[in-house]
């Protein structure tokens, strides 16, 4: 057995079902071994599609997603996706080939310092220099990627290592003296948290992406205590969006109720989130009335990084939320709830109807038609925010987007990965005309796999979010955001790939279009030509605070009525 066969064998032992990859010179021995392996390989059309698909697979399943690329350009095309997985704490293992060891450092053909370049974008990375280290390194990589705060791990295999005769053992012991994640929160800290919650008059529970695997415990904690729940962009679905205790998403485009609740709260229990600036706004004005902030996170470095924390709890969201649920008591917060209900009722997510088709109603129509029973992915921009606002996520791992890095183009590859991870489920990619064009070559991958993925391109002919900022903050000087004059006919584009393509322009045809998309077995692309100057609201301008929230589009307040 050579090193390449050992790589595949070791991956098999990790339970890997599928690899998203693209071959090339230095990874060819491993592709040769793949020919005899039971592991499925999905041939993507660009390595970035591969790493995003692996991310989508991981986020939908909770298992490690695996991608593969050749040296140099192949490996470097993974960089964006690795940082995306790092920022959104997603377990991914990336396998790359490299030039043979005797050529390393000589500027050989397709050589790049992949280990050096990917160091800051991975949780850890390796270059395997001895063929017999393969099983240990792969076991460690999967362990590191999937435990503690999950993240991407890259393993680089010089070509000669893939070709060398393997004489080692697959029975390996993981010994990482510097890596011991804490799962069980300190009992005294949990006790302190429970005491603080008991005294709270205006509490909120904030739930982030780190609690996607802890939905049952979060639910028990919320139901038992009666605490209002806020789910961040990454936390959507970790607590049901339609639950009466759910106030929705906080932050820049969050709900009025969620942002005001945080602003007025005296006690905040934050589980599995990292107080991103899109959530907090100006940090010095964040939660000014909170005398107690309890922060639960498995990564100690997140605690106290940005927000002053009174009760830190280092531990796994599932374990800690479970303990908190056990100890929680019914809260006597009727007055607080009356206030929250008022905000909720008065300012739900809404849009001003126009004679044109609008993104919000398209998303809402899909939500209603599917009764929320879908996995939803998105690109990055206005359509992403609309999807987060108008599709109510009741199940964990049902909303897969790029929260931390804000990577345009993730929608389609995320959808492909998610569909493979959860066969039998409907996957909808709400995409933008700008975002979609960044990775649209993966239509070929989708066509080949014939997955039940519905792509809804919300085409407003603009890079809409940038246009919105230019509208609000740059005197409407629309610099380089206009796409409509050179966008393709998206339905025809899909048809060119052999995928059913539909175009929707008329508001009145919306329900029919949704029905047609959902009735078609296999992949469909629906281009929805939507109103071109829609804005996402509410909005807290960057660097602002909850009090600075713009609830309705100021343009429409002036020009509309």
């Amino acid at each position: 057995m050579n090193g390449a066969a050992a790589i595949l064998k070791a991956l098999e032992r990790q339970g890997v079902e599928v690899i998203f990859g693209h071959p090339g010179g230095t990874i060819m021995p491993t592709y040769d071994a793949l020919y005899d392996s039971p592991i499925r390989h999905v041939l993507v059309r660009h390595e970035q599609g591969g790493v995003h698909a692996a991310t989508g697979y991981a986020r939908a399943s909770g298992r490690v997603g695996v991608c593969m690329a050749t040296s140099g350009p192949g490996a470097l095309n993974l960089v964006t996706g690795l940082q995306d997985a790092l920022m959104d704490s997603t377990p991914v293992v990336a396998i790359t080939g490299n030039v043979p060891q005797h050529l390393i450092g000589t500027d050989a053909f397709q050589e790049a310092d992949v280990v050096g370049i990917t160091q800051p974008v991975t949780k850890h990375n390796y270059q395997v220099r001895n063929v017999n280290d393969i099983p240990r390194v792969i076991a460690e990589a999967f362990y590191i990627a999937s435990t503690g705060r999950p993240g991407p791990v890259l393993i680089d295999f010089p070509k000669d290592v893939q070709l060398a005769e393997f004489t080692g053992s697959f029975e390996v012991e993981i010994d990482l003296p510097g890596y011991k994640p804490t799962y069980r929160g300190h009992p005294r800290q949990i006790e302190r948290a429970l005491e603080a919650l008991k005294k709270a008059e205006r509490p909120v529970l904030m739930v982030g992406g780190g609690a996607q695997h802890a939905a049952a415990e979060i639910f028990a904690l919320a139901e038992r205590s009666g605490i209002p729940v806020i789910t961040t962009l990454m936390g959507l679905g970790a607590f049901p969006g339609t639950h009466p205790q759910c106030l929705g998403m906080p932050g820049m485009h969050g709900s009025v109720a969620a942002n005001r609740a945080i602003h007025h709260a005296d006690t905040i229990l934050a589980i599995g989130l990292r107080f991103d600036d899109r959530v907090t706004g100006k940090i010095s004005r964040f939660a000014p009335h909170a005398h107690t902030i309890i922060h639960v996170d498995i990564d100690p470095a997140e605690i106290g990084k940005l927000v002053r924390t009174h009760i830190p709890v280092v531990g796994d969201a599932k374990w800690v939320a479970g303990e908190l649920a056990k100890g929680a008591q019914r809260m006597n917060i009727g007055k607080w709830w009356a206030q929250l209900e008022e905000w909720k009722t008065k300012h739900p997510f809404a849009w001003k109807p126009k004679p044109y088709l609008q993104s919000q109603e398209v998303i809402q129509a899909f939500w209603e038609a599917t009764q929320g029973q879908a996995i939803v992915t998105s690109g990055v921009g206005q359509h992403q925010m609309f999807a987060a606002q108008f599709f109510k996520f009741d199940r964990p791992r049902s909303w897969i987007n790029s929260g931390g890095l804000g990577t345009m183009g993730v929608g389609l590859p995320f959808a492909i990965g998610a569909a493979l991870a959860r066969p039998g489920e409907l996957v909808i990619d709400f995409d933008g005309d700008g975002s979609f064009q960044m990775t649209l070559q993966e239509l070929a991958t989708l066509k080949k796999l014939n997955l039940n993925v519905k792509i809804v391109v919300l085409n407003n002919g603009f890079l809409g979010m940038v246009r919105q900022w230019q509208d609000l903050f740059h005197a409407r000087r629309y610099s380089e955001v206009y796409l409509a004059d050179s966008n393709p006919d998206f339905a025809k584009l899909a048809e060119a790939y052999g995928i059913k393509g539909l175009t929707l322009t008329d508001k009145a045809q919306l329900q029919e279009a949704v029905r047609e998309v959902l009735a078609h077995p296999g992949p469909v692309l629906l281009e929805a030509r939507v109103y071109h100057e829609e804005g996402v609201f509410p909005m807290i301008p960057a660097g602002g605070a909850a009090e600075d929230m713009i609830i309705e589009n100021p343009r429409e307040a002036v020009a509309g009525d």
Partner: protein
Amino acid sequence: MRHLVSVLVQDNPGVLQRVAGLIARRGFNIESLAVGRTHQPGLSRISLVVSGDDAVLEQVEKQLNRLIEVIKVTDHAEPHVERELALVKVSVAGIEERLEVKDIAEAFRARIVDVAKRSIIFELTGDSQKVSNFVEALRPYGLLEVMRTGAVGMSRGEQVLRVREKKAV
């Protein structure tokens, strides 16, 4: 505020780059970084001099601890020994200057390690302040080269930064 931080790491290839890269990209200010092997096989020890308030230092420690190959981090807030080694080459024009320079060196307990016609190399160990003072004292005579190792440190007494032998790699 200035802090001396010791970091025990697995001495895998690239570990120094990981530590230095992390410090740089998180925007921490370091004055110096020194690294060397320990008595335990597979383990190296890095000394960092970092400036910042308590919150910054807390982040430095936590972020370093996130690195897989970092085994332990300690901020030497407790009584500790701190030393830095410096080689200082100073130009000496005539006999008079040579004697003056030697007097200064004696006061600092620096050793002469090289003597040439127009220059002397001194070797000095001490805490970083002492090294700085020595360098400044020689400046008027014409410094030709200064090489400092950066501070290394160790807690006094019982407190020990190490891994239990069976855990060593």
